[in-house]
């Protein structure tokens, strides 16, 4: 998800830049090479970005990987709202488009998200992906792993491991949404 918050917004949270634009680019380039290393020719690899934060990252990884492999890489986007496990405990989430214009059956699907936190979004994404076919395997790439898992989920490719407190908020800003590339840790002042 775009931001993973715990606790309430304060007027002036303490703000620490964790990754700046070049660091995000380096992290993505490294992840792309790790994906390429793990999945040699890449003929059967597709990328699926999780709405909303993972979509732009999946696009960027797709561009990087097509450069490495020398052929185009298919990229889709997946909304997990209908597969969440907390739908009756919250206001209905805004449903974003799901566009997977290829068959995932027997493919290696790399799910891409911006922040890995509880692992519940990843579980919902794997559930949602099953409605589109039976992938050969699913791998998970995230820009930031902030810990505090509530499910047995582990990322295959991580841009930055970031130990956080649950009261802190990790925000990922990307150029695609009209902001400068930046990962920020926000800490509420006591």
């Amino acid at each position, binding site marked *: 998800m775009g931001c993973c918050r715990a606790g309430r917004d304060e007027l002036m949270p303490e703000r620490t830049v964790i990754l700046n634009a070049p660091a995000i680019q380096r992290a993505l380039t490294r992840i792309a090479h790790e994906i390429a290393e793990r999945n040699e020719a890449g003929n059967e690899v597709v990328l699926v970005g999780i709405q909303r934060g993972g979509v732009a990252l999946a696009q960027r990884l797709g561009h990087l990987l097509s450069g490495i492999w020398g052929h185009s890489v298919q990229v889709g986007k997946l909304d997990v709202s209908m597969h969440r496990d907390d739908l009756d405990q919250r206001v209905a989430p805004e449903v974003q488009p799901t*566009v997977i214009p290829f068959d995932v059956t027997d493919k290696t699907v790399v799910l891409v998200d911006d922040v890995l936190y509880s692992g519940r979004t990843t579980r919902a994404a794997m559930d949602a992906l099953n409605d589109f076919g039976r992938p050969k395997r699913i791998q998970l790439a995230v820009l930031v792993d902030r810990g505090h898992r509530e499910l047995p989920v582990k990322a295959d490719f991580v841009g930055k491991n970031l130990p956080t407190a649950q009261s802190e908020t990790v925000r990922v800003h990307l*150029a695609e949404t009209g902001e400068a*590339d930046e990962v920020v840790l926000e800490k509420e002042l006591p």
Partner: protein
Amino acid sequence: MKSSSRKNSHEWEAERLEPPPVPDLSGPWRGTGRFSFSPPTPPLPAMSWNRKHLLDIESLTTDEILTVLDTARAFKAVGERAIKKVPALRGKTVVNLFIEPSTRTRISFQLSEQRLSADIINFTAEASSLKKGETLKDTARNLEALNADFIVIRHSASGAPHFLARVLNASIINAGDGAHEHPTQALLDTFTIREKKGRIAGLNITILGDVLYSRVARSDLWALTKLGAKVTFCGPSTLVPREFEQMGARVTHDVEEAIRDADIINLLRIQHERQRKTMFPSLGEYTSLFGLNKDRLARTKPDALIMHPGPINRGVEIDSEIADCPRSVILEQVTNGLAVRMAVLFLVNGGKGPQEISA
């Protein structure tokens, strides 16, 4: 939610993932954090739906209507997949309480609920203890004792859903109450128009036929005028009284004038079952004066679309060949009805906010 930010959402159709072009790793974005393969899209605001019930359109805000329409778009895509089912209402129980006969709305709700993985109880007037003298309140309380989470109610009395919302804890969805409202029909009509025309604001929409007895006409009027359309009611003066002007509709009894500038012609069925006395001399006279036939269609805008909530009476309010012509979107309305009803159930499931229910 600002309505301006919603304008992006109808760009979904145009949104298709291009195959990635050959990457230019030396591009200007490298090292600057800028990456310009797609235009920046401003983040959408949080959902503006906090209602536990859907009782009518009249009390909804424009943003709430748009929220349903946008959500329905995602559910329409679900219906186009090989696996048309999502687990959003898994473990929830829905009672379809149809005290008044209905086939298409009931079937549409049932399939919508099944596609959301809900458990369903169907309850119709013919087979129920209402025939044995039980009151609506007792029937509903018995259903709630089964721990129903949602009650979808169709009733011949206006206000029956509002009454249930006051006495029960379940979420209530109005599937048509008397001649009052039919909110999901209005939402699916609005969804269909928006999908076909790309917008609602500024369109001329003519609703032709039995407006007096039509809950569809009332709900359509509320939904379409809130979104900026101009709505004209047309039909015999006995069925389209001038009083509707007070609700914001234009009223005319001249069918040629009503359809000349229309972008949408929404035909209503003549409801024999609701007419307690004869409101016009004969069906034949109605057809010749107000029925949509080839000659009349030729004098409309070439891109005017024909809608009908069904069931259609071929040869009465609509000529048979017109019902099947390419400008008719009657069957698409049926498909869109599923998506809209799924969206309503999905949104109401998350709604915990206080409800204003007038007595």
